[in-house]
Structures are given as C-alpha cells and as structure tokens.
C-alpha cells in the first residue's frame, strides 16, 4: 500500500471532483424526489377518495420498497440502460411509498368535524382539498418527504454502480482501493447531506401554517434548482464516453496513468464491473476498463486496445511451485510446462466465456481444451505420491487448476487433487508456503505488487517490461520462499481499455494512443 496523505490534503486535491459528485448526488436525490412528489401526492389524494384502490396502490408501493436497492437498480438496466435514467427511476420508486402513504394518512387524519364544517360553509371539493385537507395534512406529508429524502440520499450512493455519478464514486472507489480518505470523502458529505435535508424539512414541518404556505411556494423552485445540479456536470464532454470501475478510477495504473502518461481526457462515468461490459455492448459506453481475459470480452465482442505506452503492469500467469515438491518429483515440472506458451489472451478469454457465460463445467472445458491440443492422456492412476493444486476463488484459476490436474495425472505416476476456491492472493500464497498446497497459478504483477510489495522505486524500473518483472519475481521468490516460478502460460490478465470491435475498426483505433488522437480531433 502506498503512503496515504492526510484527509484534509486528499479533500483539497480532490475538491473539484468532490464538488461535482456532491452536486450530482443532490441532483439525483431531488430529481427523483420531485417526480415522486408530483406523482405520489396526487396518487395519495386519489386513494383517499377511492378506498378500494388504496390497498392495491399502497401494496404495490410497499413491495417496491422491499426490493433490495442494488437489485432494483439491476432490474432497471434492461429497461432503461445505464446512467441517470435507471438511477432516477429506482430512487423515484423508493421515494414513492413514504410520499403516497403519508399523503393518504395525512388527509385521512384531518378531523372529520373540520371537513364537515368546510363542506357546510360551501367549499367545493377542490377548495376543500387545497384550503383544508392539504394544509392540515402538510406536517404528515412533509414527514413522508423527509423520510423519502433521507432514503434517497442513502440509496443514491449506489448510483455510482450504474454510471449515474454521485458520492458513491468515492465511497466504492475507496472500498475497492482500500483508501480510507477516499471512502470518507464520499461518506461524510453523504451523511451531512442526509442530516441537512432532514433538518431542513423538519424545520418546515414546525413552521406555523401561515408560513408553510409561503414556504410551499418556494419549495417547487428549490426542488427544481437542486435537481438541476445534476445536469451541470454533464455539460462538458467528448464524443466518446468511457465507463471505468471505481477501482480503476483511483489507480495509478488506471485512470490516473491514462491522464498522466497518455494525456487521455474523455467524458468518464463510474460504473460497476458487473454491468460495464454489457453497457459497452449496448453502446451506452464506448470505452471501458476491462480485464483482458474476462469471458465477457468474447461474449460482447469487445476489442482490447494496445497499451503502447505500457501503463498497465503485466499480469502474466505462471504456475508457482514449492521447490521442495519439484525436488521430490522431478517429473512434475515437465508435465506442468506442457501448458507453457499454449494459452494466449484470446484463448483464455474464450475459455472463461464458456465457463462464465455458457455455464459449462470448468473440468469439462479444461479436458476439451487439452484434447484439442493433443495434450490429453488417460490418467495413469499412479501411486508415487500426491500433489495438491490450488486456485483462487475467481477468474482463470479454476480452469487452469483443472488442466494441471489432468496433465499431472496423465503424464506422471503422481496423483493430483485440486483445492480450488481459496479466498484470495494472501490465502493462496500462505497455503503454498505452509505446504497445504504444492502449486497454484499466479500472476507476475500480483507477485510483484501484492506478495513482494516491492518498493515504488523498484516497481518503476520494472513495470513496463514483462520480462524484467518475471525475472525479478522468479529470483526473489526463490530466495525468500523457496518457491519456483515455472515458465509463463502465455496470457496476460491485465487491465485494458476496450471498445466494441466494430466501432474500433470504423474509427481506426487499435491502441490507446490512437484513441487519444481520435479524441483530439473529434
């Protein structure tokens, strides 16, 4: 972990972004609130007059309320795509129940004697509503708006997952990067917003009826003004839109590098990894921060742009094995090395595609692949000893572990077992040094940055050259842990900017520098 500056310095550095996100957050909260008031209040009034509808309307709004917010956002994407629309829609749906319900109960709790008097005085239904029912329901109605506002401020943080902006960008970016300052820079303003709005509406509630009237005239204007905050940041931009994960946004070898090294400035939204690929496919986004071997690259026909200035560190995969095991079973290394150089990026992508997207069994995918390459041999059911193969819980590991198992069983007298689904880098590596597993596939970049935690000065000299990184980690691992890096498998699972294949071809963009050139002229 690099040194983190103090919180005040961080806020100072990021002031522009913080302001932008805060305005977006306020905007998102109030646009949806405004729509919810415009629709919810009349609906609440309607159901006081048609009692039969009341149960249905309140029931539906109640069910909407119980849908987990992230799921609700998920439902919105197929209907409305990504960005502001689904976020506003979801926030609107959340705000609806408190507003309808409080309008309804607010009106029903007005003293019937007062209603009777008003009717007896000769008020029309409309006059009764505007002069008596609504003013007297106002404290309860405002309580509903208050609840809705606070809910919206909270849920609006999730908007960052679907490229709608807001303070969630800092919060989730901070979580992904384990950067406390960044988390706080998002969480503190969000909490303050909730507290301030809550207080403001509470004040409104306590005003005497007279003043509420005046205040209510200003409320719509205020709502519209606050809502319009959201539109401001969208005013600038480029012809192409990029969508980056919160983590990528904050990384040196991510968006910061793109700006510094390539000078790439483009309209960027923050988006969850879960929906990013699809959004590119659906043309909501043009450029995304993908992972080169992700199955979705294949599924959505995306093309990775060449990192011609080498800002993304190499993450070449290779099996790392306990030297002790290699000494004991000399036949192991040749068997494992059969995979060396065989799998390139697009092959790995294809394999991941089958497992992640087509839901095929990783063991079957592994065996099919080896068969196609002529590497599959019938298991010898040897009894010379056992070798335990580990793999991390996600990504390429599952498939690779299965391939190694088949190779070991086919080419040696050893019996291989797999222990897949080990939580993360640290768990896997500890299992290896403890001897609980004998080998697992690891990435050179991870070895350098996460396991060795090399100094910044060292990293800077190595990072642009794959071979240097590989040599460095090989040497250090052997010295420090007695662990051997076998030759790389061939693919590089790193960050890459990706575009739709068709669009990249149309615009003649193959590298990040091409992209920058294109943006300069469009």
């Amino acid at each position: 972990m690099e040194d983190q500056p103090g919180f005040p310095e961080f806020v100072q550095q990021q002031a522009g972004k913080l302001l932008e996100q805060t305005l977006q957050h306020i905007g998102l909260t109030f646009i949806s609130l405004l729509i919810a008031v415009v629709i919810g209040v009349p609906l609440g009034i309607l159901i006081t007059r048609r009692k039969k509808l009341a149960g249905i309307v309140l029931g539906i709004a109640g069910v909407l309320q119980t849908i987990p917010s992230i799921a609700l956002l998920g439902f919105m994407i197929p209907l409305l795509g990504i960005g502001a629309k689904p976020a506003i829609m979801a926030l609107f749906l959340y705000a609806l129940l408190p507003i309808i319900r409080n309008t309804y109960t607010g009106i029903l709790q007005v003293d019937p004697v007062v209603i009777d008097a008003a009717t007896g005085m000769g008020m029309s239904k409309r006059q009764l509503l505007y002069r008596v029912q609504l003013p007297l329901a106002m404290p309860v109605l405002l309580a509903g708006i208050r609840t809705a506002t606070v809910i919206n401020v909270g849920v609006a943080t999730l908007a960052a997952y679907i490229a709608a902006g807001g303070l969630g960008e800092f919060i989730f970016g901070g979580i992904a990067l384990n950067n406390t300052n960044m988390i706080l820079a998002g969480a503190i303003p969000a909490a303050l917003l909730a507290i301030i709005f809550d207080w403001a509406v509470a004040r409104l509630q306590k005003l005497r009826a007279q003043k509420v009237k005046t205040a209510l005239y200003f409320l719509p204007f205020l709502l519209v003004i606050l809502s319009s905050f959201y539109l401001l940041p969208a005013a600038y931009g480029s012809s192409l839109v990029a969508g980056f994960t919160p983590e990528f946004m904050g990384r040196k070898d991510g968006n910061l590098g793109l700006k510094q090294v390539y000078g790439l400035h483009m309209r960027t939204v923050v988006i969850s990894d879960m929906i990013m690929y699809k959004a590119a496919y659906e043309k909501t986004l043009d450029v995304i921060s993908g992972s080169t071997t992700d199955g979705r690259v294949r599924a959505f026909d995306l093309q990775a742009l060449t990192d011609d200035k080498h800002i993304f560190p190499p993450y070449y995969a290779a099996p790392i094995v306990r030297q002790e095991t290699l000494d004991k079973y000399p036949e192991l290394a040749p068997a494992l090395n059969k995979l060396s150089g065989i799998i390139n990026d697009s092959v790995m992508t294809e394999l991941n595609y089958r497992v992640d997207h087509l839901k095929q069994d990783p063991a079957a995918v592994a065996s099919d692949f080896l068969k196609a390459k002529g590497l599959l041999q019938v298991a010898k059911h040897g009894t010379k000893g056992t070798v335990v193969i580990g793999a991390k819980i996600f990504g390429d590991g599952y498939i690779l572990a299965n391939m190694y198992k088949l190779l070991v069983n086919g080419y040696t007298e050893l019996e291989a077992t797999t222990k897949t689904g080990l939580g993360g880098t640290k768990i896997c590596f500890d299992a290896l040094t403890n001897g609980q597993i004998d080998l697992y596939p690891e990435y050179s970049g991870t070895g350098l940055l996460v396991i060795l935690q090399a100094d910044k000065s060292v990293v800077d000299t190595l990072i642009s050259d794959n071979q240097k990184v590989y040599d460095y980690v090989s040497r250090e691992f052997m010295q420090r842990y007695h662990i051997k890096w076998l030759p790389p498998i061939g693919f590089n699972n790193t960050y890459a900017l990706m575009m739709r294949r068709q669009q990249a071809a149309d615009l003649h963009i193959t590298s990040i520098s091409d992209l920058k050139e294109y943006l300069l002229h469009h």
Partner: protein
Amino acid sequence: MIKLEHVNKSFHNGKPAVRDVSFEVNTGETLVLLGTSGSGKTTTLRMINRLIAPDSGQILVNGESVNTQQTEALRRNIGYVLQDNGLFPHYTVAENIGIVPTLLKWDKKRIEERTRSLMEKLRLSVADHYDEYPQQLSGGQQQRVGLARALAADPAVLLMDEPFGALDPVTRASVRKEFRSLDEIHNKTVIMVTHDVPEAFELGNRICLMDKGAIQQTGTPAELLFNPVNDFVSNFFQEQRFWLELNALRLTDIRSWLSDTVPGENHAPVLKGEDSCWDALEQLTTLSAPVNILFNDKLVRIDTSELMHAFTQYKQTVSGHGRSTRLS
C-alpha cells in the same frame, strides 16, 4: 324561510333516523329542534344544507327546493354552527370568520370590516384575538368565533347544531345571552338543535319536539307546556315544569287575572307585558316589594301573591279545555 314536507331518511342499517318530518320556519323566527340524543335532530338539520340527502320528501329554502339549487351556493347562503365548533385550526380567528365571504369573493377590505364588526358584536377583542389561532382561545371564545363565521356573509338562514352544548354552564349562559341580543339574527330564519330544555325555551319562538325520528309536537313553549298533544310531550317537561311554565308565560297572558292596582308615589315601570312571569317573580323576590308593570299604556302594580294567584288561575283555565286543544 324553510319548509320541510314529509321528509324521511334511513341510514344503511335500515332503521329510520327521520320519519315523515314536516315543519315551516318563517323569516325572523327561531325554531328549536328539541329531543333526546339519537332522536334525529342533527340528521334533520343536515338535510337542509344537503350534507345528508333525504330518502323522500321536499325541503325548501327561501321558497325553492334545495335540490334545484347549486349545492355550494346554497350552503354559502346558510350559516352553519357545529357543536364542536369545527374551526379551521390552520386559519387565524379572522380567516376563520372570513371564510364564507372569501368563498363569495368579497373584496379584502369588506371582509376585514365585516370581521371586525362581528367580533365586536360578539365581544371578541379584535386587538387580542384577530390574528390568533383557534387553539389559543377558550371554549367560549371558540364558539363565538364559530357563530361569527356562520353569520359573516349575512346568510338568510342559520342552522345551529347544539351550538352551546360543549360549554360549561356559566359560559353557556353568557354566550347564549349574547346570541339572543344579536340584532343580526332578527331578520333570519334560524333553526337550532338542542337537547337542553331551558335553552330551547329561552331561544325558541317555537319548539319542535322530536322522538325516535318523528315530530311529537310543534308549537310555542306555552302550547307545549299547557296543551301537550300526548303523554310523551307532557312527560318530557315534567321535571322542570313549574320553572318552565313561569318562563313560558308572559305577563300579558295572565293580564286578565291581575287587578288594576295603580301605583302610588313611585311611577317608574320595572317590567313590561312582554316579560315572563319568571322575570316578575325574580324582581319581586329581589326587591322584596311590589313592582310596576307597563301593559300597553297602563301602569299596574302587583305583589308576589297576586302574581301567583293569577298564574294558578290561568293554568286552571287552560287545562280545563287544554287537552282537547290540538295544535296542528
């Protein structure tokens, strides 16, 4: 003018709340609907301003059926006082009083003048209460505001549902007295609902006694007391009969049994012929001396025994042919 003809009303449970009710109230007259609770008084009243629709029968206000009048316009021309005052809690005293004129689109200045003058008439301090909210007022003051609100647009008709019912006896007496002395009500058609017999006698020109949704008897207080049409009516007043009778009889009614004793040295008249026997008895006991009564132009001097003698004579005379004198 208000006229009801064979009006019936049942609620959803099917039990009739109002049965074949007919009566007529003229301009300048106050009719009191009297009866125990649940006897259909409120229902009858609320059918007049169309808060309840009758099942059958005719209701005329100012000679025209209420059904043919535009509902809101009809109601704006009918003052309505509710038992629990029904003031708008979010309106000031002035705004409450001015509500019907506002609905009628009077100009602001006229509304303000009218509000001030009504507040003064009802002894509500303009300086103190004009901008206050109803919750800041006492029960008696709230009821006065309710009264002022009903009178604000000077409606031809005034409907009052137990207007003093929620007040303590002392406050009730004083608000009632103010109401009685209001010149405003003298040219109006007033219907007031109450279950309080003395109140009915004090305020009603005529009383309509109801039981189980039906009218038992309609007539002046004296008619109901001295010529009841059935046992229900006579039993209804049994408890306070002596007091009621003294109250219901005017001195003119017993004039024929009073002697023509001319006052001696003191010629100042204390009472008039329009005053009740109760008023005379009160004066006689307070002063502990004979009092002068002015009948038309003639001044007569009576003492307590003479008053009670005449009163007894009157009763004997009316009860002699009393029961047979049915009132239609």
